[in-house]
């Protein structure tokens, strides 16, 4: 996020070239997606693994969270594939 702002201001003498803008937009999108995933994953795995918050994150909770993270990624990929194939089928029908 800082990179974007500083580059814009440093390039005030001339126009930023299209390639640079596209690269930076791509980075921004990737960051936004990672944040989105992180937030939802934290939410879901907290709910699944932390029954009653204790004084520490104990061993079994950590194991559960690790497993939950992996399954959330599996779920994400499964959903992505299913949605993609649905789109493909609908496109073929038109």
């Amino acid at each position, binding site marked *: 996020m800082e990179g974007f702002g500083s580059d814009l201001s440093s390039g005030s003498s001339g*126009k930023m070239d*299209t390639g640079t*803008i*596209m690269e930076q*937009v*791509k980075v921004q*999108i990737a960051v936004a*997606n990672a944040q*989105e*995933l992180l937030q*939802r994953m934290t939410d*879901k*795995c907290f709910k*699944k*693994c932390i029954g009653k918050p204790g004084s520490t994150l104990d061993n079994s909770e950590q194991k*559960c969270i690790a*497993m*939950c993270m*992996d*399954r*959330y990624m*599996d*779920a*994400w990929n*499964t*959903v*992505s594939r*299913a*949605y*993609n194939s*649905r*789109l493909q089928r609908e496109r073929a029908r038109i």
Partner: protein
Amino acid sequence: MENQGVTADPQLQQFIEIESQKQRFQQLVHQMTEVCWEKCMDKPGPKLDSRTEVCFVNCVERFIDTSQFILNRLEQTQRSKTSFTESMTD
């Protein structure tokens, strides 16, 4: 503001269109993963078992069906009321 130069660039315009489309896809994947996680996931195990995977796939299909059904039905009810709401929707 002064972003005319940006939006007028056809290469950039096309890029933004494609990225927006990709982003809508991603956003819906995030959303459906969350919804279907609640429906399909019991206790996270060492592996995503096939029953759960089938549940996720069905969940995605039915979620999209639901969305389309609602859209169609709303359209239908709107159409049958067109004479009534014409002045409002136009």
